């Protein structure tokens, strides 16, 4: 991971000083605040997205039973939620022109709330540990 981080830093220097045709041209930086914030939000959303995708199936399997049909059913909300969320928010972006900040805030809040819900489920499972079987 340290090597990866150093390579990322080296990549930044290479883009700025090393080449004529950078992958990330500076022409993109015309609204630097929006670009930087959007990339930051994408970064954090990516981390939450990958962690949910990787952790929820093993959690559904290990904590809530090995029944294949049950595990599949427990994985449905994640996929359907991502699909529906993407379609609905993109539609809303066209309807509410100019309110992209509010849409992004609502989406981030829902993401955090979703995480809290999963956390609550984990806590309740922990407390009722004896009733799991």
């Amino acid at each position, binding site marked *: 991971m340290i090597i990866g981080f150093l390579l990322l830093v080296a990549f930044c220097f290479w883009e700025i000083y090393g080449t004529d045709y950078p992958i*990330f041209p500076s*022409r993109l930086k015309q609204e630097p605040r929006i670009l930087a914030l959007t990339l930051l939000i994408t970064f954090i959303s*990516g981390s*939450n997205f*990958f962690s949910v995708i990787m*952790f929820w199936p093993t*959690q559904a399997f290990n*904590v809530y039973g090995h029944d294949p049909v049950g595990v599949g059913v427990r994985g449905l909300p994640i996929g359907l939620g991502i699909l529906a969320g993407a379609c609905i928010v993109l539609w809303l972006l066209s309807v509410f022109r100019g309110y992209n900040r509010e849409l992004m805030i609502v989406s981030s809040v829902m*993401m955090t709330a979703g995480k809290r819900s999963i*956390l609550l489920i984990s806590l309740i499972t922990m407390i009722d540990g004896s009733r799991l079987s």
Partner: protein
Amino acid sequence: MGHSRLGSTWYRRDRCPCLYHNNYHLPRCKALIPYLFSRYALTSSHRNTNHFKPPQDLIATVAALTLSIRVIGGAVGYTVYYNVFVSKFEENAKTLIGGTMLQLGIQDKLLIGKAIHLTSAALLDQLPTIPGIGNNETALEMVTVAGRVAYAESYKYVYYVSIAFGGVCTIAACFLGNINQYMDDHVAVVVH
């Protein structure tokens, strides 16, 4: 109206802010959606100030950039969360599964280690091969439930960390600017 003399249709703002009208239908729609148009009225004066033309040829670059940033975020985030999870699970497995097996009277560290290994690999149907548990239904159930509770307690910390990340994300989202000036149905490339 903000019609630029440069000949580009980029700067044309003679359109209604609602979705369905391409002509200047402001008065008719104003009656229907007053809040939307109060904002339009307040901001229309400074909205026609594109001093630069955003690059049209870099659409694919930007799409790929957001995808790659998402994957990098996924890699970094997953590493962090996984390390949190594994460190907590090691402790909880020893306490809960080890504790349960001590209750059952199994003192051998190798057997406890084997039970923890089977639980972490989700091979619960091999638990009866451990001598102390064997075919004893109650013992099997106790160890299984202990494993599940150990998992649940460890996942809890993963979600705490991710809530912290989500909070940072929400705060960052509050400072985003307005991109309405760029959303004018302009087609950059016709792909047929």
